[in-house]
């Protein structure tokens, strides 16, 4: 099939400010049909905002936007959709309680008088699935589907409304690593079907692999746009951060294996989830816990913290533990949970409260909380993580992903724990912030903390861990160390039980 590339969308001099904050300024670019066009930048660079301007979530503060050469201005996503511009956002906007069919057909049901013609509606939806060879069980409840299928439903919803341009906003941020390739294939198939695709992401590998054109944004400014083929990983990093990248991972000192382990897990089991998990972590040691999503990695971590019930023996600091989460935290454990929005932070509360929440007892006296001392401690620990914030009273949701994650690190260091369980510590965090989180982890290890690092990013596990445990189907399928610690060995073990 011969692809023609027509200019669908033209932005000239586009800018956007929120209140007094300028998010984007003076953006000129064109988007063509049949191509995947990446917007790349750090968090806060304005790439998501630009995507949202295009699909009508935000309206322009200045400049003009043209679709097919005609000027448009949107005040709602519905208006953008009328022009064929649709967005697939980070937080999917589906109705989890309803079926796939209901979700796709919403607002586009075929009517017979005042009633919905169910059969014709279903036929319409199935026809769209057929045309784009994208099949999802129409009767499945959306909430029961894995995220990648949910994304498909959202894409199908856009396609059934004759979308010509689809903006993907960080579509892989919430995906397990083995689901990324199918999604990228899906994105490519949309471009091959003649759609214009905008792919907003900070995952450089994905951009290099799956896009045709790339636009680099930094601090709300357009740095450059060009064919992806002309870019390399390093050139993108340089464009995104404005500086040449040094080593990606910090040096981690060898742990003290002679010292008694900080934590010893023996025969830990939770029926149907994981079984007979045993390992030790020594002071200063970073142990990676790798495996596919759903293998039981995070569940093991939760069981160690006492968040889920389990059987087996956990010896921590030489003592067997079995108490509540609070008791384990007080005993010197800390966890950075898998999903900071849902499990880690109070998004609508001030930074200071988020930092001190598990440690309030140390600021409490007969007269209640000593808020001055609390603030001083929070301030010191936030500063140590190099978090960027205007005031400790700012709500957590005012910060970028990387800085939100640093709130959790500040919380951790304030507790001065013996063991840190870090579950996906760099998820949804941009390139620059990633390195500083790695530095934080390495720094904690250097202070003699034991660290259990869970990550879907294999490179991250390889780059930081002294030793890696690979979980497959709830069992430890392999322990890799030194020269044996390679990506191939890791993936082989991860897939061994499946």
């Amino acid at each position, binding site marked *: 099939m011969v692809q023609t590339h027509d200019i669908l969308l033209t932005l000239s001099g586009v800018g956007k400010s*929120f*209140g*007094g904050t300028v998010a984007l300024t003076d953006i000129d670019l064109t988007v063509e049909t049949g191509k995947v066009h990446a917007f790349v930048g750090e968090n806060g660079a304005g790439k998501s905002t630009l995507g949202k301007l295009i699909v009508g979530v935000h309206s322009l503060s200045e400049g003009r936007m043209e679709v097919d050469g005609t000027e448009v201005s949107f005040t709602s996503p519905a208006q953008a959709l009328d022009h064929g511009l649709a967005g697939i956002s980070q937080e999917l906007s589906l109705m989890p309680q309803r079926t796939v069919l209901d979700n796709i057909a919403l607002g586009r049901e075929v009517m017979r008088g005042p009633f919905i013609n169910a059969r014709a509606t279903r036929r319409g939806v199935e026809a769209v699935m057929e045309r784009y060879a994208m099949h999802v069980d129409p009767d499945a409840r959306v909430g029961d589907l894995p995220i990648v299928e949910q994304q498909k439903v959202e894409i199908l919803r856009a396609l059934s409304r004759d979308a010509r341009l689809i903006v993907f906003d960080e579509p892989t941020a919430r995906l397990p690593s083995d689901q990324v390739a199918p999604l990228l294939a899906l994105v490519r198939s949309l471009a091959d079907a003649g759609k214009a695709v905008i792919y907003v992401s900070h995952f450089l590998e994905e951009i290099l692999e799956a896009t045709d054109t790339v636009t680099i944004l930094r601090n709300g400014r357009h740095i450059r746009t060009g064919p992806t083929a002309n870019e390399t990983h390093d050139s993108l990093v340089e464009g995104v951060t404005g500086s040449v990248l040094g080593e990606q991972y910090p040096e981690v000192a060898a742990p003290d294996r002679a010292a008694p382990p900080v934590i010893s897990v023996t025969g830990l089991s939770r029926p149907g989830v994981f079984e007979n998990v045993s390992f030790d972590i020594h002071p200063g040691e970073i142990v990676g816990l790798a495996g596919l999503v759903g293998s039981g990695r995070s569940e093991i971590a939760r069981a160690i*913290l006492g*968040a889920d019930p389990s059987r087996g023996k956990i010896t921590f600091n030489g003592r067997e533990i079995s108490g*509540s*989460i*609070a008791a*384990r*935290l*007080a005993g010197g454990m800390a*966890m950075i*949970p898998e999903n900071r929005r*849902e*499990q*880690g*932070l*109070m*998004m*609508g*509360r001030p930074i200071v*409260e988020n930092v*001190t*929440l*598990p440690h*309030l*007892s140390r*600021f*409490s006296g007969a*007269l*209640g*909380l000593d*808020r001055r001392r609390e603030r001083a401690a929070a301030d010191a620990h936030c500063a140590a993580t190099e978090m960027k914030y205007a005031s400790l009273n700012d709500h957590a949701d005012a910060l970028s992903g990387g800085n939100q994650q640093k709130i959790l690190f500040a*919380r951790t260091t304030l507790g001065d724990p013996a063991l840190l369980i870090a579950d996906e510590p760099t998820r949804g965090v941009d390139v620059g912030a990633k390195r500083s989180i790695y530095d934080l982890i390495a720094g904690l290890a250097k202070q003699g903390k034991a660290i259990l690092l869970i990550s879907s990013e294999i490179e991250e596990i390889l780059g930081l861990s002294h030793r890696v445990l690979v979980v497959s189907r709830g069992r430890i399928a392999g322990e890799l160390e030194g020269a044996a610690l390679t990506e191939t060995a890791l993936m082989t073990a991860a897939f061994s039980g499946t």
Partner: protein
Amino acid sequence: MQKTILFARNYGILVVTVLLLVLLTVTTEGFLTERNLRNILDQQSGVLIAASFMTMAIITGNFDISVGAVYVTAPLVALFVENATGNIPLAVLAGLAAGVAMGVINGLAVTKLKVHSFIATLSTSFMFFGVGYLVSDRAVMRPITEGWRALARTRIFELTSATWIAIGVTIVAAILLTRTRFGRNVYASGANREAARLAGVNVDRVQMITFVLLASAAALAGVLGASRAISAQPSDDFSFIFAVLTAVIVGGTSIAGGSGAIWRTVTAVFFLAFLTNGFNLHQIDPIWQRLIQGFVILVAVSIDAWSQRRGG
């Protein structure tokens, strides 16, 4: 603009209350008199006591409808004991204990049975109303001691004892919420229950305590009300809970949990009280009072919703 919105969100209720105060002072003769203001304080004491702790319960993300039933039934229990023993302190303690017991039942229904708090406390409301009918034998109860009426009506420095108790309870609630670890755990439980749990907060215990405190406060309000009225009668009257909920919500406490403040609830109590008082001073037909009051509440709540949306 952003600053204005932030200010409106935080202090909007205070601004409109002050405006109303000025308006009524200018337009009526009787409003800004010591006597009138003293009366307002005394009349609002029950709502203030319950609304402070209702704010706390709503911040944890829970509703408590049964406050109305506790308000009706606890004084019946207290008068039952008073009638039997003639001992007022014992009677008050019995009324408060009834409140504690009812709070525990609510807490268990929400934390152990995992029923949504709205449904759970709606159900327990009927149980508690039923207890009221049982205890009183379906009749109006009156105290046998002369001292009973003194509970709420003793004058100390020109203000009634009910007023002083309300001031004390409100201050205690505000301190508890803003200056203690427990208060932080209340916000955390409502702001993000799972995150709070993983941070070591015993979320069930926090919810249980808020239910018990709230029911005890409602029982105290009920006993003071029965002292002022020198009687108590069983009923299925939900009006008290609506007065309390209205104040909390007009005060801008988020029904989603995680945010709110007692000073805002207190301000809203006075806003609503001034409104009613102003209507009466202007001799506005009670039917129109209802219509206007409903409209004003809707406006207050929509301003809040608007500022949350814009600021968020």
